[in-house]
């Protein structure tokens, strides 16, 4: 579900966020229009908008844990966790294989209500792995949250049965793009 579908239609902050994200064509490989959030981080107002919108959504949802996916999830997770007063756990992507995530076993207590955060959702593979990790540790994943997401995640799209909340779509998508 996108923010515009859930009460934030016309919110000027969303346009500011979208405008602050830079598109880099053909990175990491030909055909991919990479959504570069580092330019968002250079705009303190737009960066704060991202945090504010997520905090507004999650502060009353009884979240006890924010899980940030390495490495760009580490940038967005902590400010949200600090604002809602909750703990942060980290999930690490291994460098030699792009299909494996790790989490410290002591990080999660049973029955935690977890929020998973990453900068972008494309296939949903990383977020699905994160959900698996947290559930195996006994947590309940309440929602996954991303700054950018492909349009296919509109509506009540779920990942492994969990809702997904996305702030903006990519501002440029080539026809026939595959992620």
């Amino acid at each position, binding site marked *: 579900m996108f923010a515009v579908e859930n009460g934030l239609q016309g919110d000027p902050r969303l346009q500011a966020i979208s405008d602050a994200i830079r598109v880099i064509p053909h*990175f990491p490989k030909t055909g991919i229009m990479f959504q570069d959030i580092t330019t968002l981080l250079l705009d303190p107002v737009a*960066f704060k908008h991202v945090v504010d919108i997520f905090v507004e959504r999650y502060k009353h949802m009884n979240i006890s844990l924010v899980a940030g996916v390495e490495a760009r999830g*580490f940038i967005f997770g902590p400010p949200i*966790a600090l604002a809602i007063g909750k703990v942060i756990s980290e999930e690490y992507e291994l460098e030699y294989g792009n299909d494996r995530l790790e989490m410290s076993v002591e990080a999660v207590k049973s029955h935690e209500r977890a929020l998973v955060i990453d900068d972008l959702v494309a296939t949903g593979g990383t977020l699905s792995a994160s959900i698996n990790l947290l559930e195996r540790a006994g947590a309940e994943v309440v929602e996954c949250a991303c700054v950018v997401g492909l349009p296919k995640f509109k509506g009540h799209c779920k990942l492994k049965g969990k809702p997904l909340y996305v702030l903006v779509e990519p501002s440029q998508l080539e026809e026939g793009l595959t992620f």
Partner: protein
Amino acid sequence: MSGNKQEEDPRINGIKTKIRVVPDFPKKGIMFQDITTVLLDPKAFKDTIDLFVERYRDKNISVVAGIEARGFLFGPPIALAIGAKFVPLRKPKKLPGETIFEEYELEYGNDRLEMHVGAVEAGDRALVVDDLIATGGTLCAAINLLEGWGRSCGMCTRDRVTRIKGKAETQGEATMHACGVPMMILAEIFGLIIWLINFWLCTGNSDYADL
């Protein structure tokens, strides 16, 4: 300079006690200072950020540069609180746009830190953030990277940094003194090894250019 030889802020002990020591990680003989347990304690994490924000909020800092990956956990909250840009300094090939890089020495071989071209501009006053300092190699690479665009650190040059060798327990501090860059260390563990979050305030000498 550790900056806290006078009365220690009461929050510091709370933070120190939350750091977990993991023996023999990543290899035998190393007592790894794990700050992830600080993140699991909202008060300790908030105190950590507050201590740095209190120190830096009126220092006219326009850029907070965080070193991948644990610097990403501490840098952005500080940047947001003081209204500064956040710039990630990353391992090779992670940043999608045009980059500049600085190499630094590891125990065996070299590694490299990269930054996007255009992330910092002339006149920016930069703070560098990481979770831990040991030898100071990574932090010095960060300074050199930022400095390469003519920003601050008037006394810090690559030659001066790489020539510094010292005892393990003081190497980091010695390196930083030679750099001429002030450093704030939140906590010293066991009095031997300097750990935890280190910030360098580059005092912005606009007369110095190293382009």
